[in-house]
């Protein structure tokens, strides 16, 4: 029988009291633990948490700096900034995204083909961040949206600074453009410096001087709540928030003269080609034309895939910068430097006459080299050979000089190497030599240099290729009798606030040495002959100044040994490229240039008249007389 337990009140009271004491002790320990924890959080790690809390509540909102302006040498704006209306959308405030976008398509505010792309962009943005969905709205677009605004919660029209090119296509290949920052760009820019801007310079001056143009971002500290939305107050208080004004980018003063640039573009209009005009005394780029061009504005406002496709697939390649990247055989424009080589190496007597019967027989070979258009120049000396561009004379001269001497002599004139112009992308062209050929070809049979190739070299055909920029550079070296200046587009910086101008010193590229002054003079005389009595006499007629030039015709299409070139019979695209180089005034040069017209035929007929117009535009005053030297 189990023991019956009887309730013992005193014992139970004591037991309860003991338990109460134990519980109180446990509670005390727990409380101390809690206080220790509070001490850790609020005293020991206070700094850490205070920082986290500050990071929580304050967001740095970048204020993009105004991009520097780009001006021509007379201060005319080539690239500026313009406020533009754009349609922006806050994802979280739009109830029906797809429906909204569809409706915008119906209103012709966005394009149907862009909807997918836009949806992707919207999905990858933060819900409360404003996403631009249509840039550069016209006044009409703005009005069309404004009357229906009530239908579109979460959409608003904002004003943003956008790049503005008042002259559209003018000088686009020198300027470049600004476009959306690409994955590629992100690799080499400081992301923080580009917060708040979606655009970056691409190509040309816009890209090369990106750092100067961009300026420095300002910022505004914004109080944000937990969802990242900016708020004005924090509870009952408005905290002290800092702001730093942005530092506007520097303005760039280009060496380009827009008047000359316009003249050159107008003269070349309707053709493919390039014009590069330099100041031979300091390397200033007076004009840099590559046609066709494109309107850089469309990249800034966001080019559509279809627009880009049109540019890409255009048979005339408007995106291609012919002036810097187009490489062509220089044709007869190399004759002055070949002549200089002949004189310097004393392999030619300038007074000696040779007889030109329209054909050259390479000694020790059965090959026959013909005169262009099968002309017969008769008896020619060096001066005549340059002025009338006698191929036979230079075939012989090149053969005597040999490839090694020609290549060595031409290198200091910038053949085969970049000019060092201050924008990127220029091609070096090819200055062929025995070594070059050995490297350039893989088949041993092709690696051997043939004497016939030297003969072609002498009239600028064959492997030798140059860019229009290189030829202009070469013309300017002859103009200054050997002085080399690195071409540059940016002549000065201007502080946007003070207006203070900081000149960029011209960079010397050294000098071509070892050529006797009288030899320079002989060749220049021959080149003056080109424009007075030679191949380009028509273009040189009635000039208010004397100018030296040289025509060139680059073969696109190889004419077989026994065939004759007939421009009328072959397609326009296979016709010869037309070259002309010149500098003026001949004895005191202020401008040197190269003109290329693709498939323009002979240099004298297409390129030379363009060059004359450019020279006139630069050198003549309103009265049609030579402007005094400044």
């Amino acid at each position: 029988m189990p023991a019956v337990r009887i309730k013992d009140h005193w014992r139970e009271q004591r037991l309860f009291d003991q338990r109460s004491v134990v519980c109180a002790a446990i509670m005390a320990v727990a409380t101390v633990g809690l206080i220790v924890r509070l001490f850790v959080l609020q005293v020991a790690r206070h700094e850490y948490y205070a920082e986290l809390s500050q990071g929580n509540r304050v967001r740095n909102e970048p204020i993009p700096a105004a991009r520097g302006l780009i001006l021509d040498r007379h201060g005319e704006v080539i690239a500026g900034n313009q406020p533009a209306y754009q349609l922006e959308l806050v994802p979280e405030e739009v109830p029906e995204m797809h429906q909204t976008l569809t409706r915008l398509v119906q209103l012709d505010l966005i394009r149907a083909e862009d909807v997918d792309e836009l949806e992707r962009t919207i999905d990858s943005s933060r819900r409360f961040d404003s996403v631009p969905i249509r840039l550069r709205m016209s006044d009409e677009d703005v009005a069309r949206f404004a009357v229906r605004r009530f239908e579109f919660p979460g959409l608003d029209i904002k004003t943003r600074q956008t790049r503005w090119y008042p002259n559209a296509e003018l000088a686009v290949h020198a300027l470049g453009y600004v476009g959306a920052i690409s994955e590629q760009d992100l690799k080499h820019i400081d992301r923080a410096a580009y917060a708040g801007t979606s655009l970056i310079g691409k190509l040309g001056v816009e890209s090369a001087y990106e750092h100067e143009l961009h300026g420095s971002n300002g910022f505004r500290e914004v109080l944000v709540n937990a969802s990242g939305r900016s708020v004005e107050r924090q509870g009952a208080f408005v905290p002290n928030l800092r702001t730093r004004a942005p530092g506007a980018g520097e303005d760039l003063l280009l060496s380009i003269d827009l008047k000359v640039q316009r003249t050159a573009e107008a003269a070349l209009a309707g053709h493919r080609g390039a014009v590069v005009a330099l100041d031979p005394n300091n390397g200033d780029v007076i004009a840099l034309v590559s046609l066709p061009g494109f309107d850089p504005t469309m990249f800034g406002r966001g080019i559509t895939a279809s627009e880009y496709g049109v540019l890409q697939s255009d048979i005339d390649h408007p995106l291609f910068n012919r002036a810097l990247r187009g490489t062509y055989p220089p044709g007869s424009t190399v004759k002055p430097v070949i002549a200089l080589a002949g004189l310097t190496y004393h392999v030619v007597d300038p007074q000696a006459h040779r007889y030109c019967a329209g054909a050259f027989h390479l000694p020790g070979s059965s090959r026959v080299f013909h005169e262009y258009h099968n002309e017969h120049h008769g008896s020619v000396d060096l001066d005549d050979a340059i002025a009338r561009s006698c191929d036979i004379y230079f075939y012989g001269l090149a053969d005597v000089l040999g490839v090694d001497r020609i290549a060595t002599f031409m290198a200091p004139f910038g053949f085969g190497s970049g000019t060092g112009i201050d924008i990127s992308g220029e091609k070096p062209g090819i200055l062929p030599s025995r070594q070059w050929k050995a490297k350039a070809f893989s088949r041993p049979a092709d690696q051997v240099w043939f004497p016939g190739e030297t003969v072609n070299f002498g009239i600028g055909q064959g492997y030798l290729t140059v860019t229009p920029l290189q030829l202009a550079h070469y013309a300017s070296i002859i103009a200054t009798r050997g002085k080399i200046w690195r071409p540059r587009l940016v002549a000065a910086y201007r502080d946007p606030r003070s207006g203070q101008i900081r000149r960029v010193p011209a960079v010397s590229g050294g000098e071509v040495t070892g050529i006797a002054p009288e030899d320079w003079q002989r060749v220049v005389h021959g080149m003056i002959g080109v424009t007075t009595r030679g191949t380009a006499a028509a273009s040189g007629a009635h000039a208010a100044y004397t100018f030296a030039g040289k025509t060139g015709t680059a073969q696109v299409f190889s004419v077989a040994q026994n065939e004759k070139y007939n421009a009328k019979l072959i397609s326009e695209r296979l016709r010869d490229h037309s070259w002309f180089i010149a500098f003026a005034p001949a004895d005191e040069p202020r401008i040197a240039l190269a003109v290329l017209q693709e498939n323009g035929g002979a240099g004298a007929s297409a390129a030379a008249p363009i060059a004359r117009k450019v020279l006139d535009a630069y050198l003549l005053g309103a009265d049609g007389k030579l402007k005094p030297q400044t």
Partner: protein
Amino acid sequence: MMYEEVTSGSRTRRTLSGAASVLFELKIDGPLVVGLALIAAFGLVVLYSASGQSTATVVRTALRLLLGTIAMLLLARVNPNFLRRSTPWMYALGCLLLLIVVAIGHVGMGAQRWLNFGLFRFQPSELMKLAVPMMCAWYLHERPLPPGWTSLALLSVLILLPVGLVAIQPDLGTAALIAIAGTLVIILAGLRARVMVAFVALAAVGAWFGWSFMHDYQRKRVLMFLNPQADPLGAGYHIIQSQIAIGSGGVFGKGWMNGSQAQLEFLPERSTDFIFAVIGEEFGLLGLLLLLLLYMFVVGRAIYLATQTQDTFARLLAGSLALTFFVYVFINAGMVTGLLPVVGVPLPLVSYGGSSVVTLLAGFGILMALYSRRKLIGS
């Protein structure tokens, strides 16, 4: 009238004596009421800031406090013997209401904690916070202590039935609190140490078992407690943000209504479960120490009152109510500071919302009733 009317002495003395006699008439314990009032007042001040300067919230809370005070005053006047006799009925009613809630919840799909009586909504689990310890104390009242195995088995059933019903609502926080309130009665009754060890072992097994029945969000809370940094934007967000709030408050705090974590809503549930962090941020360590001091005073006074009662029912119930109050405070503070997992336990008398304020004050009313009639019982 137990006391002589004081007719002489200073004016202050007369006022104090007058107040004492009023309190006695009301069966109210002065120090306890002062402690509770200070906590509630502090709570209202904090709540104004934590709710984003919402006067409506403060007024609603004040009204609930008033309702709770009325419940406290009424219950303080109830005869403990009547209270004890009606305990089984109250318990049975509570269980019935819980069953109804579960049934409705089942039909309505999803979490269901309320019974809607049109005019007001009633949470039966709140009733069980009081009914379960009362039932346990009632059961042990006439039995010899410490309780034997049979008693323990029966008590377990009495506790686990309502706990289970609340847990499947699902409201794990309240279920845990009810279980704790009941268990505390048994412990105070003198549960032997070795039995406690056995129960802890059993609980470990139960925890493993319970894990397999938990909802995903409940499991997440446990996991997040173990490693809050693992998912800073998801489940761990609450704890990280509350620690930032408390830590950034420092010793003196950022000032009333100037806590950026709270005011800019980085701190979730700032006016309810996480209001402790708001105090830490705006009033600093000093504010929290003051609050803890007030709580300790209330708990200490309540335990003292419990030890002064003279029958088993009163002692066990009063002791359990006092200790449960501490448990509320500790669980809430522990969860907000990252010492304990996040369970939905409000900070007593300070957190906004729920009927817990009324239940708490009602519990203190019962405690005062038990204390004030100590001499009438068992004599």
